[in-house]
């Protein structure tokens, strides 16, 4: 009888373990975010945020001291003066001393996950949350205003200083007064949107998950033009001399005329492009799911491609003259490469560097 009971308990424990393993508990469901500021590189990667030396990749500090499986950091940390604002999946927004990683304050009013990073506007931090609210707090972490959308907010807003613009899963692009949080206008983007918008000279460029890129008048939200591309749009386009450069989920890099949205050219790559590219002196660089870093000239000619271990989902960042690549499910989560794609340094979790 005792043996039977023991066997049964062991069997149940094994079943529970199997269920937990098979159901994928603990699997990552986002990609790391990286921010460059002064001599630091800040990396939000799972249950830790790292401050790394920008020249060497050495760890200066990490936060929190005691990592938690629930408190996951994926959004790019945002710098507000000497504060580093980090947001997490356990509905927390925390201010850290950017140099030491010491916690200054935390804001816990949100009910959902922070998927993307907050926007810092002088003395205001505007943070989108998956609970459908945009939270604006001051530099002491006190709530200034809240704006409630109809569904989750996954993208960092853009702003001209007076209005903040942001997409929502509820299919709308919102324009909200930066001081009061009151709605100025909203425009139906037809399909849910998770991409950040690009604001340039009074025009907003923003894409939805169905692969339609819109140009809107920032003053009233009226649609100037719309253009369908090969696949869903997950990031803001890049703008250079009247041309928009935009990756999509089908793996294309699209070059569009910013005045009318006409597709000038597109370049096929091997897999989905979700992150924003980066403007270089001689062209643009995009990363894709297959781990390819593709650099094309401004006229669409392919300059070079390098393949790395992992998926390049995240936005590519510039670190001085170099590029920072965040690799999901790769051996090295963060890689600094030169403009020819050669590795300068890397940061890996196990060895804590190089």
């Amino acid at each position: 009888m005792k043996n039977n009971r023991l066997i049964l308990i062991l069997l149940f424990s094994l079943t529970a373990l199997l269920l937990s393993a098979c159901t994928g508990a603990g699997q990552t469901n986002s990609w790391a975010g990286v921010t460059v500021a002064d001599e630091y590189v800040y990396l939000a990667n799972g249950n830790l945020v790292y401050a790394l030396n920008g020249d060497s990749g050495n760890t200066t500090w990490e936060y929190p001291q005691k990592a938690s499986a629930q408190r996951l950091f994926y959004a790019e940390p945002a710098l507000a003066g000497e504060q580093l604002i980090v947001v997490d999946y356990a509905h927390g927004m925390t201010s850290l001393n950017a140099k030491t990683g010491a916690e200054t304050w935390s804001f816990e009013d949100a009910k959902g996950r922070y998927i993307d990073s907050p926007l810092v506007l002088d003395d205001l931090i505007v943070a989108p949350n998956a609970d459908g609210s945009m939270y604006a707090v001051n530099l002491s972490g006190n709530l200034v205003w809240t704006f409630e959308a109809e569904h989750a907010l996954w993208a960092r807003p853009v702003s001209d200083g007076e209005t903040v613009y942001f997409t929502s899963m509820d299919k709308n692009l919102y324009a909200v007064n930066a001081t009061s949080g009151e709605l100025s206008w909203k425009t139906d983007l037809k399909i849910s949107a998770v991409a950040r918008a690009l604001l340039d000279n009074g025009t907003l460029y923003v894409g939805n998950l169905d692969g339609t890129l819109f140009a809107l008048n920032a003053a009233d939200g009226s649609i100037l033009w719309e253009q369908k591309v090969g696949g869903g749009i997950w990031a803001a386009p890049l703008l250079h001399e009247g041309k928009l450069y935009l990756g999509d989920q089908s793996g294309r890099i699209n070059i569009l005329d910013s005045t009318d949205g006409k597709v000038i050219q597109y370049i096929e790559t091997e897999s989905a492009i979700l992150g924003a590219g980066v403007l270089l002196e001689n062209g643009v660089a995009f990363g894709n799911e297959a781990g390819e870093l593709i650099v094309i000239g401004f006229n669409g000619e392919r300059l070079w491609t390098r393949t790395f271990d992992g998926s390049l989902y995240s936005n590519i960042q510039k670190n001085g003259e170099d590029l920072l690549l965040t690799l999901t499910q790769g051996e090295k989560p963060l890689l600094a490469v030169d403009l020819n794609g050669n590795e300068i340094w890397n940061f890996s979790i196990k060895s804590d560097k190089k």
Partner: protein
Amino acid sequence: MWDTIIIEPFINLLLWISKLVGNFGVAIILFTILTKIVLYPLTAKQIKSSTAMQELQKDKRYIEIQTKYKGDKERLAQEQMKLYQELKINPMSSCLPTLIQFPIIIGLYQALIQTMASGPIDLLKLSRHIYPNFLNLADVLPLTSKFLWMDIGAPERLFIPGINFGIPVLAIVVVITTYISSKIIAPPPSPGANDQGAMMSKMMNIYMPFLMGWLAWSLQSGLALYFVVTNLVQIAQYAIAGNVHWDNIAFWKKNETTKPSVLPPSKRGK
């Protein structure tokens, strides 16, 4: 392979039902009922096997074996096995529907996580799992995860004013319904107190509700909802087949139901 056979059909079916009824919680309930209907042939087999076991316990030879080898567990087991073989009864066949449910539970959990798309990678996967000729991502997004007081994509807790912690109502309901469903569908106690099968069954009835309750407490409430509906449908299916034993949960009748096993079959209650 797993994605193609299990996850993708589940996701598409769930999304399709959700699109029809406009609520993801209701979609899970309907989906569960549908899977129970599809799996009914297995349940019917389980009921048949359970009935055969009950009949066996009234069999003269079975009672004789229990009495004769009361003190010799090994021999008793051998004789019982012989009798099972002779009467072509598989005492383990009642476990089959439960075992088959495990891949469904795992698949449902993965489908739920990906359908709720609470993070970018889940959303990316979801967009790839949708059958383009069957559903359009644009039509199903955004999914509303609210059902009654719960968020389908998160573990369920009911917050009551004045109480500074959330009550896991659904997990408690899972424990209770799992216990009730396993007790009332179980055959009456075996005449032999040393019947190992009965012992195992008794222990299963104790541990299984807690295992399911723990899963319901720690995983998404959509899965807990699946457990509750599964239990209720199971009770209904057994009741329709006339095979429920309410006496098993009637504690006040405990003494009556555990009378000595040597009573002649004609005097034993069902």
